């Protein structure tokens, strides 16, 4: 049974007795129901709104193999311990990272991924940037192209540090710094937006796509190709970030009643969006220039 990425499977080592139960808590595999969604063989994300199905009866089925009662008793004891440990770990994890919120970010499909990549590289023709809602909760990326996702940034972040020989921790450190600075500035200016931490991580991670594209062009076409690709992806990324964050941070023109946005000066918030956008190409250049001399 292929397991998804390690980062969200803290219970992998204990799940030997009941591997399917561990899957049910974090991810539900609906690939049999929707055959068009398997973009990569080892990763089948799904977002099940009906709640995870609890089948924890994996353990008793194994016990029938043991004729020795001591071994079977020990097996049951071990599996009950493992279940307790798993519940405890899940509870602890849910205190820090809301797993449902994370599931929202990974509920993508191939159509969304392709459209999103095209918008990232060529955002000039996209008309409608508003994130669509469905009864007060934001739509999953499967239904709404404008919703941020973590699937693309995570895969690009994995490719970009490893394949291209960047120091992974440097890139990670810059992402952490950038997200912290964004959070701090949003807090100081009392912007009451619905941008959560994960949203900011998602938007910061989109620059890795540009980074990969830039470095690939640089490797294929030499330093001229690098600069051309850098200029192109910088403009596209800046446009993308400004248009995406404008909807969330700046006060919307069509606000109902007395303006639900904050009362801080709108020009400060404009500065935030523009500064974020300008920061992206600087970081791309900084992190990749030593590869293409």
């Amino acid at each position, binding site marked *: 049974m292929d397991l998804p990425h390690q980062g969200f499977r803290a219970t992998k080592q204990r799940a030997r007795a009941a591997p399917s139960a561990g899957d049910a808590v974090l991810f539900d595999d609906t690939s049999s129901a929707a055959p068009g969604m398997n973009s990569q063989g080892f990763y089948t994300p799904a977002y099940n709104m009906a709640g995870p199905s609890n089948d924890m009866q994996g353990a008793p089925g194994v016990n029938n193999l043991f004729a020795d009662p001591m071994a079977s008793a020990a097996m049951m004891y071990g599996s009950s311990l493992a279940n307790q440990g798993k519940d405890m770990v899940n509870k602890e994890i849910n205190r820090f990272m809301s797993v449902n919120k994370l599931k929202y970010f990974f509920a993508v499909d191939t159509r969304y991924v392709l459209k999103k990549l095209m918008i990232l590289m060529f955002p000039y023709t996209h008309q409608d940037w508003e994130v669509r809602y469905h009864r007060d909760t934001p739509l999953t990326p499967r239904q709404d192209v404008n919703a941020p996702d973590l699937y693309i940034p995570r895969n690009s972040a994995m490719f970009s540090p490893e394949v291209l020989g960047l120091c992974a*921790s*440097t890139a990670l450190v810059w992402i*952490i*710094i950038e997200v912290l600075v964004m959070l701090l500035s949003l*807090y*100081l200016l009392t912007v009451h937006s619905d941008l959560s931490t994960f949203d900011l991580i998602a938007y910061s991670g989109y620059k890795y796509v540009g980074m990969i594209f830039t470095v690939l062009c640089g490797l294929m076409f030499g330093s001229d190709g690098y600069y051309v690709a850098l200029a192109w992806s910088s403009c596209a990324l800046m446009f993308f970030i400004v248009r995406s964050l404008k909807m969330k941070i700046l006060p919307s023109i069509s606000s109902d009643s007395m303006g639900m946005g*904050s*009362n801080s000066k709108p020009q*400060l918030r404009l500065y935030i969006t523009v500064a974020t956008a300008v920061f992206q190409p600087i970081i791309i250049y900084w992190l990749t220039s030593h590869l293409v001399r």
Partner: protein
Amino acid sequence: MAFTLYSLIQAALLCINAVAVLHEERFLSKIGWGVDQSVGGFGDEPGIKVQLMNLIRSVRTVMRGACYFLLCTFSHFRQKMAKKKNYVTFYQFFYVFNLGLCHI
């Protein structure tokens, strides 16, 4: 510039310690940033200066003891990693002691 996660944590700890060390009476009130000067404006418009003052006060409240303890831990680790001679360890100890004294 090769940053590691460890150096980021160290830099963040030192920055937070710097914020936590800003003394309320001796310094912040003198430049008009004390918390008793931040009342007023009961609408939903705190303004950036009031937010900053609240932030400084929160950091100070939370990190008072924690900073000292964390600084001791980090200097101990760095000392172990460096494996240098005795006078360097005295320097580390003095450095941390100094930082800790500022909290009084």
